[in-house]
């Protein structure tokens, strides 16, 4: 089916791939630099030992997990309208998990020893389980997506063994984000992360940011190709985004209540740093407020049925949702866990230019994978006259 990428693609698509390749190339050059000089070229430090890479990974696990939001209603509740876009969800998951794995690899001090995780399996480490569930999820989505699409192309039912895999993939999707939340939620002495609703927060934000991106992609495809994912599907997704975002914001408010009503310094310090700045350090304050404002805008547009139903305002709402949550997971959540540090002092973290380019490179690689997969899916759907 890959031949379609070459035979069916127009000039714009080729341009897109070229542009992404340029960014991948730049990222790769920066990565080579990092490979030869060490992670010292990043802005990370003894005190803030995880930065942009791990934060992106954390956000993207959510995007990957969100595929379940189309798979579940379609296969478990027989919600027909999603039939046209499940493949888009599954392929988005493949691209997102690939990015996750790449982000983990670029973050390792000893990338060539990666397989030590398999050679010395350590069940007490959450990172071990994260690796297991992420790779399993990638495999599941490749198998399911590819076979279902191939069957569709041939006009036959997908092979029998795919069905059980689909059912497995539903709890599996939940597990990838839960386990990723456990990476943080189980650490002693990191008060910002040490909260039992971390996994719930992760899932809620994932189920709004992922489908928001899916809506944007579906609208883009609708505009640029002959394949229409369907108004009903998009509107159903929009409702999912709405409720998930409400729950996500609610969960954050719960955290704020616990922190500020209890006034336990270990809890309030980090939120103070995020919202108002601490000891004269306020690097993340603008980001936090931008995220908050975007969330409010998104909520206003999504809750109001009129704006939710209009494509134009829905688009804005989805952009706002996606960026609001990207800031929350992809910037503030991970970094703030380290600020203030274990000595209650503050070490700043500012990503360096190569670090940013490597990050962009991985994102571009993900979008490259996504573009290619979507091209295949869409060209088949177009052919079937859908």
């Amino acid at each position: 089916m890959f031949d379609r990428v070459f035979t069916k693609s127009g000039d714009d698509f080729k341009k897109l791939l070229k542009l992404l390749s340029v960014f991948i190339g730049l990222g790769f050059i920066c990565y080579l630099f990092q490979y030869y000089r060490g992670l010292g070229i990043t802005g990370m430090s003894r005190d803030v030992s995880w930065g942009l890479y791990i934060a992106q990974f954390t956000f993207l696990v959510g995007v990957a997990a969100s595929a379940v939001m189309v798979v579940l209603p379609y296969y478990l509740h027989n919600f027909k309208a999603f039939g046209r876009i499940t493949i888009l969800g599954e392929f988005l998951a493949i691209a997102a998990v690939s990015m996750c794995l790449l982000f983990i690899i670029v973050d390792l001090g000893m990338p060539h020893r990666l397989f030590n995780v398999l050679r010395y399996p350590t069940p007490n480490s959450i990172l071990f389980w994260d690796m297991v569930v992420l790779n399993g999820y990638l495999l599941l989505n490749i198998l399911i997506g590819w076979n279902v699409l191939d069957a569709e192309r041939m006009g036959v039912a997908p092979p029998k063994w795919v069905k059980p895999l689909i059912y497995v993939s539903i709890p599996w999707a939940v597990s990838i984000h839960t386990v990723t939340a456990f990476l943080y939620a189980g650490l002693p002495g990191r008060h910002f992360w040490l909260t039992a609703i971390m996994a719930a927060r992760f899932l809620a934000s994932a189920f709004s940011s992922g489908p928001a991106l899916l809506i944007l992609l579906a609208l883009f495809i609708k505009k640029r190709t002959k394949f229409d994912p369907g108004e009903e599907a998009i509107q159903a997704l929009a409702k999912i985004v709405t409720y998930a975002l409400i729950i996500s914001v609610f969960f954050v408010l719960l955290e704020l209540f616990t922190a500020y009503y209890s006034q336990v310094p270990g809890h309030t310090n980090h939120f103070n740093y995020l919202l108002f700045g601490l000891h004269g350090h306020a690097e993340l304050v603008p980001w936090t407020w931008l995220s908050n404002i975007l969330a409010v805008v998104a909520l206003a547009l999504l809750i109001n049925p009129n704006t939710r139903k209009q494509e134009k305002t829905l688009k804005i709402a989805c952009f706002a949702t996606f960026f609001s949550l990207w800031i929350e997971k992809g910037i503030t959540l991970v970094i703030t866990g380290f600020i203030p540090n274990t000595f209650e002092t503050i070490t700043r973290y500012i990503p360096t230019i190569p670090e940013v380019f490597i990050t962009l490179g991985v994102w571009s690689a993900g979008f490259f994978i996504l573009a290619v997969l979507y091209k295949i899916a869409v060209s088949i759907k177009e052919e079937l006259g859908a």
Partner: protein
Amino acid sequence: MDEKRRNFLKITGACVLGVSLLPALKVSAAKKVTEEKGPTYKAHPKALHGKRWAMVVDVKRCQEQNKKGECRKCIEACHSLHNVPTIPNEKEIKWIWKDNFEHSFPGTAHEYVPEDFHEGPFILLCNHCSNPACVRVCPTKATFQRADGIVMMDHHRCIGCRYCMAGCPFGARSFNWRDPKLYLTQLNYDYPIRRRGVVEKCTFCDERLGEGLLPACVEACPAKALIFGDLDDPSSEVRRILSKRLSLRRKLEVGTQPNVYYLV
């Protein structure tokens, strides 16, 4: 004989810690001591044995020494012995260092704490916790705990994920962000240099205990402010002193059960 054994021990130790596992296998194969489980060697006759190694820091004594003039003897001894590079910024590497009361015991300090106590200094190092979070989170067992409680690092297995750094509530771990060789002026050829990309920390001088010596910092302290011993042994100096004087441990509330005690 003794000399021979010492050399052998040194070589095996250096190999296990230093070069790679392969030479270690070769050496032991030559000595016909290879077993299925890997190389074995006889312990040094004078090796120190303990069940729960611990360190007691007599803050008063340390302070008095400091009043005579800034003292960094323990830090220098440890860092030069273990080839710990001196990197002058937030990418630093430290196995043992000094800080004040507030940073060492966050939340415990208040304005009425005696002035000189406030200043410390407090000697900080890995606590070799009885319930170490770093060991729990490490995905490769590169961080592991020995039967005698020492929390060890296998620099050849570490993948540099830095999860242990997020896990340790005491900031006891350092990552080699850069090539440490660039920041070393003097080398100790008896101890391996780490590469960039791995995490490292204090090991209670396991290599010295194996030869019957006390940790380098303990030996180097002019004020005898650092006391090392086996908590499991009721007759040990550490037990005696802990039963006589009031002591603090860092961040007890997080449950890792640190084994470094501060006499106040």
